[in-house]
């Protein structure tokens, strides 16, 4: 990492970092602002690109920008300029970029070449042509192509004031278009044929989405570079997906992640001017992606595993307590005392209740002890504490109500039953619970052994 490099480290100080991050200097302020705006627009468009499953298409498009960029440069030079006219350069780049993606679509629709192969072909042919052209340009006498190379890897600091305004306006416009067409793009991505059956001009909509992607690509070419811009389009969207299952929220989160990556990345790169800006921005975005992958609240790995662990524990506890309660029921079937009383239970009988090993039961008991559900236990027998007994009878009642419900209401059951819910009452109406309790009445379990509270046990 660059922090380990002594030469780089020498140029790095927190003072300067703070100065940059909080935009205290005009030049960095423009660079950082426009890169953040770019990040926001890339996050928005990228979400649709991702959902349309066109990520590779974006890659082909951005690589296909190179020949157009160089051609525009050569034309500018031929007409006697320095080749430093950003709008013309971007127009040239966008033109071949769009042409490249049109080629991909054409290959798909008119030949039997598959999408991915088509993209691979277009990407390499166009990029190859671009590299050749760039070489020619470099060998031409009297031209300074240094600026061109910055478009490949990104060089945010090379931005000029006029560029700043152009790029920022473009980025904002892209973002606004995405918001205006949110509903249309959503349907396009989800069910293209349905959109067509509504009479929507799906093809034109698709092209417009491509146009927006091309726009992000050329806007980002200076700050991020055309090789890595695809990462800037895809990574924020992919990261956002880990946090939500809602498209609207995903859009905003993706824009936010893109914006933050642009901000932090551009600040860092103005501190470390020798490193390619695009790479830094993408590394920042990737860190956010990895964090989301692990901790995302909708699909993050850690979150999912934690949920599962919690569920496994909860169900383990329920099984143990119910096993004890049911054993108590079997132990006290005297007519004058129909309800089970809390007393010591042989461990043997608990183990026999389920496909448990002694080991499993011991583990469950140790946890139950920590939760104060046990009065005491040893290798031969165990007894529940008062709260444990209450909990056990509540769990058993819950369980039986669910069983009855599933038998009597089999038709609606699958979508209503949540067997690990803390209480039936949370999911079923009071009338329903009363009805079920009546059905349960003949069994030797009190309708409500302890006053039922809605308190959820931790």
């Amino acid at each position, binding site marked *: 990492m660059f922090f380990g490099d002594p030469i780089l480290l020498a140029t790095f100080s927190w003072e300067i970092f703070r100065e940059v991050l909080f935009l205290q200097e005009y030049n960095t302020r423009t660079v950082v602002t426009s890169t953040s705006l770019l990040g926001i627009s890339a996050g928005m468009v990228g979400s649709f690109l991702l*959902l349309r*499953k066109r990520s590779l298409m974006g890659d082909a498009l951005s690589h296909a920008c190179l020949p157009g960029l160089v051609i525009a440069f050569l034309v500018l030079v031929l007409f006697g300029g320095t080749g430093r006219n950003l709008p013309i350069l971007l127009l040239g780049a966008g033109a071949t970029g769009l042409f490249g993606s049109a080629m991909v679509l054409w290959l798909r629709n008119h030949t*039997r070449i598959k999408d991915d192969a088509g993209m691979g072909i277009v990407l390499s042919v166009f990029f190859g042509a671009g590299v050749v052209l760039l070489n020619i340009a470099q060998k031409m006498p009297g031209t300074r192509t240094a600026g061109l190379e910055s478009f490949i890897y990104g060089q945010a600091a090379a931005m000029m004031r006029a560029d700043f305004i152009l790029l920022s306006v473009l980025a904002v416009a892209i973002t606004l278009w995405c918001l*205006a*067409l*949110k*509903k*249309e793009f*959503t*349907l396009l*991505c*989800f*069910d293209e*044929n*349905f959109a*067509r*059956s*509504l*009479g929507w001009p799906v093809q034109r909509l698709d092209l417009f989405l491509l146009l927006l992607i091309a726009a992000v690509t050329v806007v980002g070419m200076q700050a991020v570079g055309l090789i890595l811009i695809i990462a800037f389009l895809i990574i924020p969207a992919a990261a956002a*997906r880990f946090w*939500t*299952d*809602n*498209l609207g929220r*995903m859009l905003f989160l993706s824009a936010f992640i893109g914006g933050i990556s642009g901000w932090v990345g551009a600040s860092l790169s103005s501190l470390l001017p020798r490193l390619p800006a695009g790479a830094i921005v993408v590394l920042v975005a990737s860190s956010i992606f990895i964090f989301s992958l692990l901790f995302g609240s909708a699909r993050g790995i850690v979150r999912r595993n934690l949920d599962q662990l919690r569920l496994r524990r909860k169900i383990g506890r329920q099984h143990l307590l119910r096993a004890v309660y049911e054993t108590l029921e079997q132990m006290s079937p005297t007519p004058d005392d129909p309800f089970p009383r809390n007393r010591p239970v042989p461990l043997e009988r608990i183990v026999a209740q389920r496909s448990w090993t002694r080991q499993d039961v011991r583990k469950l008991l140790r946890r139950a002890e920590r939760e104060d559900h046990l009065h005491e236990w040893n290798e031969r027998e165990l007894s529940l504490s008062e709260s444990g007994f209450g909990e056990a009878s509540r769990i058993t009642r819950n369980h039986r109500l669910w069983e009855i419900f599933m038998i009597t209401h089999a*038709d609606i059951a*699958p*979508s*209503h039953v949540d067997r690990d819910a803390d209480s039936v009452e949370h999911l079923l109406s009071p009338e329903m619970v009363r009805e079920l309790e009546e059905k349960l009445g003949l069994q030797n379990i009190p309708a409500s052994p302890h006053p039922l509270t809605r308190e959820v046990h931790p």
Partner: protein
Amino acid sequence: MTKTNLPPAEDDPHPEHSRDAPLSIHDLTVAYHRKPVIWDIDLDLPEGKLIAVVGPNGAGKSTLLKACLDLIPRVSGDIRVYGKPYRQQRSLIGYVPQRESVDWDFPVSALEVVTMGVYGSIGWFRPVLRKHRAKAQEALEKVGIGHLAGRQISQLSGGQQQRVFLARALAQEAQLYFMDEPFAAVDAATERAIVALLRELQQQGKTCLVVHHDLATVARYFDHVILLNMRVVAAGPTAEVFHNENLQKTYGGKMPLLEEAGQALRQNLS
């Protein structure tokens, strides 16, 4: 697939196309890559009926629907909806695609999918409003899964997803519905629910063209049937055209089981 060149049935050469049929298809041929898949389809659908499209796998049932909906280009043919060219009548049409045709991992809820049914009437650039969502919710209630409105669609079972698609079509408030295998992979209860819904649509005077695979239930569910195998083998009231001979022509003679099914059906009908 072997006998594609049967002479046309005698009562079928050039039917008069009625002016106001919900759907009238004239001379339709569709090809993928130069290979015609359905040929010379000539059909008039009667109004207010439930109409089944049956035929073996690859017969072109989905293709017929897609061609009617203008989703794939036609080699030849003219399609009219209530007497006017298809393009002018889109607002009268509802569509239930095959369930596999979309990615169910998409980050939207059941309600949002159903809301797509009213997108056509919202207009471009306009946001989805509360009243649109209320309409979608109503449609979800009608198919019996109102309580699942907020669920992300990947967390629905196959039958529930099918109901979501039906609800979306209901929200379209169309006159003519195209449904591609709405009964695929649903349990008996869902099937009953869907049939009840179809009947309700029929009572409101709407017409439904439904691709259906279960020959045993065709006679029970549908008034009309179109037997399709690259061409229309027969089309008409179920009682008249859904018999063994036509089934043989549609599915080929190599299916003894089918023969029995056909016989059983004939007994059912008489």
